[in-house]
């Protein structure tokens, strides 16, 4: 089936960010000091382990950012040369991959691995009369047919084969890694494997492999189980909670990374200009960020989001699909969060530039008659980049948590965008039900916890490696 690729604004910026990441890696490989700093990151077990988990999340976010509009089936009796029609629903590659999860919608709540609905329903019996029963799910455990008693055995068998499969894949990956390390070091295979296992390799490969094993087990178990059961249950409208959680990852990544990306040019340019030029430029820039800082962040965000909502609602003709509208709102939220958070970085960069300005090599450049813009670009900017990098990784986890709170308050992403915040918002009253529905909340919080925890650990390691005061 054909499809029409769609490039949303956030997709474009996300890919731009990935391209910057790749360019950075190429750059780092050429520069010895940067290579050494990243080597310090890699030599820490926490750094490698959290990097593996973050990469797994990044992979989900990447696949979910490839958007397309599927071709509609040709209507019966349509002319031979009729133009191809595309669905107005924008899907992502992840939606296509997870089509079974997305489309297998139950009637309402069902517990994880359940084969029956969570609530009793009154049904007409075939022989007349009514009964209150737990109706059978349309999809959850449907391969079992009526033999729902065999569910536990079936799940156990699938878990066993899943773990075995994960181990096979893991052993293959570990073997490839050992071969690569052995060839690079010019040692024997056994020697390389022993060095790796004792943690004597210069990078913390052991931690990476152990984490990778966990990731494989989780992923392959999901592949083995999710097509047959609702692993995390279903929500009020019967949507699979695992699908919602996976879709939320992209929103969290976009908010966590794009916010810093969109504010970076302003913060860097204004920060180093204020620090280097001084005088009235410094006064003006300091005034601007003091004013923005003086407004409590949540209130500024609330005011700006309210106003942005008005703009989006009064200009419906700007957007051709609902996805584009939701995407515009997501990007606007990133911009607004960026406006409220650039002041901190700007102040740090100003302070650092004030110090750099007095250093000999900058004064020498000035004495040689190098222009101001060249000094800023060649001598100041590269020497404040570690602050930018630290800010980028340190802000990420806070932004992911902020998204959930803002969406909960109603000033976050569009209600149609799947995110941790909207998931929690929908499930806010479920614990008060009798009996309580806990799985949507737990799934959202668990995904968020793993993402934020690995981001926090990674940020700590990066800061330790790059902050000269800490080494």
């Amino acid at each position, binding site marked *: 089936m054909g499809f029409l690729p769609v490039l949303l604004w956030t997709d474009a910026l996300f890919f731009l960010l990935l391209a910057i990441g790749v360019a950075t890696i190429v750059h780092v490989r050429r520069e010895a000091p940067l290579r050494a700093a990243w080597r310090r990151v890699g030599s820490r077990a926490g750094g490698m382990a959290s990097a593996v988990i973050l990469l797994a999340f990044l992979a989900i976010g990447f696949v979910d950012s490839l958007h397309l509009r599927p071709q509609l089936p040709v209507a019966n009796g349509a002319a031979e040369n009729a133009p191809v029609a595309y669905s107005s629903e924008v899907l992502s590659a992840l939606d296509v991959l997870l089509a079974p999860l997305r489309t297998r919608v139950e009637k309402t709540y069902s517990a994880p691995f359940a084969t029956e609905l969570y609530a009793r329903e009154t049904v007409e019996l075939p022989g007349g009369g009514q009964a209150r029963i737990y109706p059978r799910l349309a999809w959850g455990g449907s391969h079992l047919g009526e033999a729902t008693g065999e569910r536990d055995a079936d799940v156990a068998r699938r878990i066993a084969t899943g773990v075995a499969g994960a181990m096979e894949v893991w052993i293959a990956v570990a073997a490839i890694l050992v071969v690569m390390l052995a060839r690079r070091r010019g040692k024997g295979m056994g020697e390389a494997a022993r060095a790796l296992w004792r943690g004597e390799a210069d990078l913390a490969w052991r931690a990476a492999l152990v984490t990778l094993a966990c990731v494989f087990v989780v992923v392959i178990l999901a592949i083995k189980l999710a097509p047959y059961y609702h692993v995390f249950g279903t929500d009020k409208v019967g949507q699979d909670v695992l699908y919602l959680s996976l879709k939320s990852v992209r929103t969290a990544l976009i908010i966590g990374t794009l916010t810093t990306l969109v504010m970076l040019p302003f913060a860097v340019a204004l920060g180093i200009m204020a620090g280097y030029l001084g005088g009235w430029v410094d006064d003006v820039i300091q*005034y*601007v960020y*003091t*004013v*923005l*800082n*003086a*407004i*409590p962040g*949540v*209130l*500024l965000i*609330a*005011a*700006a989001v*309210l*106003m942005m*909502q*008005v*703009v989006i*609602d*009064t200009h*419906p003709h700007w957007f051709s699909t609902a996805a584009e509208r939701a995407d515009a709102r997501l990007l606007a939220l990133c911009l607004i969060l960026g406006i409220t958070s650039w002041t901190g970085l700007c102040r740090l960069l100003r302070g650092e530039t004030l110090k750099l300005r007095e250093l000999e090599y900058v004064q020498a450049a000035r004495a040689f008659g190098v222009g101001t813009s060249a000094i800023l670009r060649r001598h100041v900017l590269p020497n404040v980049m570690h602050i930018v990098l630290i800010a980028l990784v340190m802000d990420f*986890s806070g932004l992911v*948590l902020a998204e*959930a*709170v803002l969406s*909960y*308050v*109603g*000033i976050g992403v569009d209600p149609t965008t799947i995110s*941790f915040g909207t998931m*929690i918002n929908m499930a*806010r009253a479920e*614990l*008060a039900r009798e009996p*309580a529905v806990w799985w949507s*909340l737990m799934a959202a*919080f668990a995904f*968020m*916890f793993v993402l*934020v*925890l690995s981001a*926090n*650990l990674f940020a*700590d390691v990066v800061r330790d490696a790059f902050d000269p005061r800490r080494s």
Partner: protein
Amino acid sequence: MFAYVLRRLLYALPILIGVNLVTFALFFVVNSPDDMARMQLGVKRVTPEAIERWKVERGYDRPLFFNAGVQGRGQVTETIFFQKSLRMFAFDFGRADDGRDIAQEMRDRMGPSLALALPTFVLGLFASVTFALILVFFRASYLDFWGVVLCVAMMSISSLFYIIGGQWLVSKLWALVPISGYAPGLDAARFLVLPVAISVIAGVGSNARWYRTIFLEEISRDYVRTARAKGLSERVVLFRHVLKNAMIPILTGVVVVIPLLFMGSLLVESFFGIPGLGSYTIDAINAQDFAVVRAMVYIGSVLYIIGLILTDISYTLVDPRVRLE
């Protein structure tokens, strides 16, 4: 001292003007009052008369900056900018959509907000400093390592989880305290125990970790080595010398938030049904009551600026090396 405070107050004036201009631009220039009216009344099927009535009710029917329709001083005063923005300097915020005076409402709601925020602040500071001190006392041991891991784990949990989970566990499962609500006077304690406890727990992770780094930085100073060389015990060094000196950065870091305590906490207040300024803001956001949000933005920045001035003054009080000139 007096001259210094006066000068700081004068210096705060341009910042307030800036805040005022930013909010004015945000609320009246980005969108015209017509757009806002259409948004609130529903985009479709809205008559020009309804929009006009909406604008007259709120006083948004005037021109933005210059009213050519009237004579004399009215040309400047009969404008949105004068009526809605400049009057905020006199803490006159006009009326909310439900017809009540916003300034009066704010005064009424400061009490409950403070009743929640003040105990949270004091207990939170105490808990975090204590936890950080324990970690520093046992530094470079397993206790320290796992304590930091605990801090990082605690700060990775969404604050929503603490609130929803705590409310479910304590109020619903154990039925120890009411789920939500508020009562004036001493009776409020019953309603405040849980929100205060949850806020303290939610904040302890990141704060304790931050205070721990401050303590560790202080411990590597020369005066600590001197104190140890004199033969003082680790306990005395830590509590008499390090704690006192480390309180300088800690106190000056938290003084700035003290005035903001009046604003209350958005999340906790709305979850626990406490009629403070935080839940007022949330209600205003949900009802799209632009006047209330604008007033809260202004009040928030006034309190923040007061916090900055207090920070500068507190420097001189706790650190004799700093002299205000």
